């Protein structure tokens, strides 16, 4: 998978040794904050063989031609240097974050996305932002009329991360001046889904808690596919953005007008539609779907079936005694279960795939006199769903007021950027996504620097991206274009543009229907 990703990023200037050494990074679990300093040191030395020259580069940020020296830049450069001179960097290093917000964070696309239109509106202005500051204070109910002001405040506060809330009936900052508290209420928010791989802890055997690997990321990919298909085909939503949460989760943001305006009851219904697994492990059989299968379940099973085999091989969910017991608990026929148990007790290491096949084989031999084949088939279908069907954190989706981390924020624990995974129903992209190759904030800053250096070296010779500089050499290559953030940035931009366009055309259509001429509709 990382291989595939680097294909995608072929035009991004990243030095070859770096991309190969990424595989090293894969082995490393996301380090908890407290120990980040020491673990990173080792990891980074692996990745960047010459750290000394690297930090030299950062100090000389101001000299890079692509970012013309200004007093501010100079100052910042020194900040970074002094912060880094002490010990190995940490992801929550305020100066690193400040650099990131200044040079890379896509404020304008974020504005366009939340506002769904280029002209300022309450959709953005009355929107709540909540910041987690570097001292872990939590600042809620912030709002900004435009992205410039948002940017300015973020540079001032330099939060370690921030979250996006709903659009309120009045400006969130004025909520205390209202005579009646009840007039302050959420109006609209993107419909969101939150998937967290810890919810799979009872069936994933490769990792636990906050750790992830390529194997268990499959659960996330499966979830994306199942939900995306249903949201499009069943509910008719189009503007669905899937975002990596930076560590072990996925967020879905649905920005269609209809989705934004759903009230809490409808959200609950929508989330309920996707709820197949109920109750905890204590509750016995967790999947109880009606027969005949609802078209949504049927389609989901078609999507999930090939993955199930992979899960059996990679996760070995039935290998352990408890895993095996769980499987038997799900099967209906007592005689068959006894036969299976007997067979498996003689070969304790039998792989899960074999065990799964054993069910049908033994059933065929007729160990059970009155085997209900239909019940067995249904139980097997239910088991398949239990081990593959999406597990959504339902509470997040149910309420408009719930806050969710913004895309492109840096995850404070891993340093990875919360990049979009895919949008527009492009499931190939979801397949190719590998969370472990997502760039971290420090890598990105370094890429900007090394890009400048490379450019200097290549000056005069033919440049790869000369067409971008066509008319004037002065035309800047934007900072994000120098980094591995580029494909994600472009993905997001494409998504936002499409959203804005559809909103404007629907607006235009509405106006046309009202008898007005749509000729003065906004253009981009």
């Amino acid at each position, binding site marked *: 998978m990382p291989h595939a990703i680097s294909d995608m990023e072929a035009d991004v200037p990243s030095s070859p040794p770096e991309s190969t050494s990424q595989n090293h990074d894969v082995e490393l679990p996301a380090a908890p904050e407290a120990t980040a300093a020491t673990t990173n040191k080792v990891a980074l030395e692996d990745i960047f063989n010459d750290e000394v020259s690297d930090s030299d580069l950062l100090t000389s940020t101001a000299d890079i031609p692509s970012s013309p020296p200004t007093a501010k830049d100079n100052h910042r450069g020194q900040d970074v240097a002094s912060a880094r001179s002490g010990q190995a960097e940490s992801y929550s290093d305020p100066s690193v974050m400040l650099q990131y917000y200044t040079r890379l964070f896509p404020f304008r696309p974020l504005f366009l996305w939340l506002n769904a239109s280029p002209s300022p509106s309450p959709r953005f202005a009355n929107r709540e932002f909540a910041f987690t500051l570097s001292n872990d204070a939590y600042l809620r109910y912030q709002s900004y009329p435009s992205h410039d002001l948002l940017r300015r405040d973020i540079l001032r506060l330099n939060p370690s991360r921030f979250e996006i809330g709903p659009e309120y009936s009045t400006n969130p900052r004025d909520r205390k001046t209202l005579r009646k508290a009840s007039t302050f209420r959420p109006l609209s928010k993107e419909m969101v889904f939150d998937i967290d791989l810890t919810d799979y*802890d009872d069936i994933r055997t490769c990792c636990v808690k906050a750790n992830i690997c390529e194997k268990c990321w499959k659960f996330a990919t499966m979830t994306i596919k199942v939900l995306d298909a249903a949201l499009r085909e*069943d509910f008719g939503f189009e503007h669905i953005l899937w975002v990596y949460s930076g560590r072990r989760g996925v967020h879905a943001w649905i920005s269609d007008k209809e989705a934004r305006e759903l009230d809490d009851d*409808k959200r609950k219904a929508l989330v309920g*539609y996707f709820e197949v697994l109920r109750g905890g492990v204590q*509750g016995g059989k967790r999947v109880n779907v009606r027969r*005949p299968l609802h*078209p*949504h379940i049927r389609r989901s099973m078609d999507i999930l079936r090939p993955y199930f085999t992979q899960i059996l091989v990679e996760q070995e969910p039935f290998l352990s005694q408890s895993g095996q017991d769980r499987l038997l608990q799900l099967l209906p026929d007592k005689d068959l279960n006894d036969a299976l148990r007997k067979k498996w007790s003689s070969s304790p290491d039998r792989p899960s795939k074999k065990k799964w096949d054993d069910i049908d084989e033994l059933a065929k031999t007729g160990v059970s006199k009155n085997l209900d084949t239909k019940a067995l088939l249904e139980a097997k279908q239910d088991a398949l769903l239990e081990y593959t069907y999406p597990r959504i954190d339902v*509470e997040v989706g149910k309420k408009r007021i719930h806050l969710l981390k913004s895309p492109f924020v840096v995850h404070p624990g891993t340093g990875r950027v919360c990049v979009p995974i895919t949008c527009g129903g492009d499931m190939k992209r979801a397949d190719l996504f590998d969370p472990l190759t997502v760039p971290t904030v420090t890598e990105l800053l370094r890429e900007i620097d090394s890009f400048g250096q490379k450019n200097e070296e290549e000056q005069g010779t033919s440049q790869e991206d000369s067409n971008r500089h066509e008319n004037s050499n002065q035309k800047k290559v934007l900072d994000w274009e120098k980094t591995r953030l580029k494909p994600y940035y472009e993905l997001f931009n494409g998504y936002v543009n499409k959203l804005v366009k559809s909103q404007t055309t629907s607006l235009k259509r509405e106006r046309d229907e009202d008898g007005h001429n749509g000729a003065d509709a906004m253009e981009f």
Partner: protein
Amino acid sequence: MIRSGARPELKKKRVDHKKTQFAKATYKENDYPHRLSLYDIPPTAEISLEEFETWAIDRLRILAEIESCSFRNRSPQETVAHLEPLLKKHMPLSNNSAAAGGQVDQRLRDERKKDHYSHWILRLAFCRTEDLRRRFARVETMLFRMRFQQDEGREKKAFIDSLNLHWEVVAEDEKLELSEHLLASTPGLRRIDDESFFKVDWTRVPELVEHRGVYLRKGKAYVPMRDQTSMIMTEFTRNLEKALELSSRALPRMDEDDRLTPILDHLSKNFATPDAGFHDSESSLPGAPINAANVDNLSQHFPLCMKNLHTTLRKNNHLKHFGRLQYTLFLKGIGLSLEDCLVFWRQAFKNITDDTFNKEYRYNVRHVYGDVGGDANRRGRGYSPYSCQKILTEHPPGTGEAHGCPYRHFNIDNLTSMLQATGVYDRDVLKGVKEDVEKMRFHIACNRVFEWAHKTEIKKVKDENIWGPGELDTIVHPNTYFKRSYLLKNLNSIPKQDVKMEDT
């Protein structure tokens, strides 16, 4: 008689006085051709003050009964059976067929008038606060649903037709094209010809969507004719909620002559929550050693849900959010002080640092106690401990979560083994629990276990007449469970006066 000034002010807008001054008052009497109504036209005729009050009280009685049924987790069938006689007595509402020749006669008209007026009076009484509005809309919807389901087929159809709901009927060829999907998503339907469908935006049938009881395509729900109930319910609730909101805004402007306001006030106060609320007096256990160090010891008196939380906490050294919430509230309810509670959680979370605890958990515990948070939270001293009703109906536990009610959220095998682990080994009790759980009577199961575990003590207090029957009422709150258990097990060590005092 009430003068026009006392009538709901909504009416005024509808009447153009200049034009109607000499016209015949057409709005005066509603005709009530249907038994049911969405109550979208306010009453306009005059009624006496006495009627105003008694009609409202009659309806209120029914609504309170419906609410208490839902709090006791009664099934719809049980609720109907329970309410039937009461409805007959206080709020009869007959089908057209009950009258001679199916023509609406005076008797029916009177019944319907009472139904209509009492609904509108209670709207006035219950539109004042958000909480009252929500509860009123909820129980009114339940009442409406109950009546709707009992309505006779033909009349039901006539009623629905009168509503003008703009439902688009699915054309025959589209139906055939989608027949496979439609069959699969309509439970119980065998042949596609047996049913006709109509399509609406899915947001109009959230109930059906939530349970995947309907086929969805591109945002449209294909609703079978017989699922109209769900749609009409949604329609009913939506209308009512909107109307209540409007009335609440209009209320202050009502031209009121101090005759109705006292009645309305009185009515709304009488709609007190029958939910087993938790009172501070309930927690007072004089002399009981309730502190952080003693929780392990006290846990022998906990109901199963809290025992489960406690053992899970001890096993994992952690609890997830809703578990923490449920347990903290309970601990608050048994009288554990905030300081002790913080000490308890700090010690229980063995695997985290002080820093993490202070950052991530401390605030929540303080919030629950009303030590921090908004003004309302502080004034109300935090939230009240969850009742069984709340635990049973809200937030079913998911993976890795230990809150909820074991009787409801465990399967029977796990429940049995857990009961056995807590010392309940009596075969009859376990069998009884199983039956209760099958009938969804979870609190009865819990009470059964309680009675078994305290049978000698209960016998003693009964024989010696120390406790009245009121003290041995069915338990519907975990904190009542704890308190009663504690008192029973410490009958000798607690001075009798104290127990007596609680009797009064």
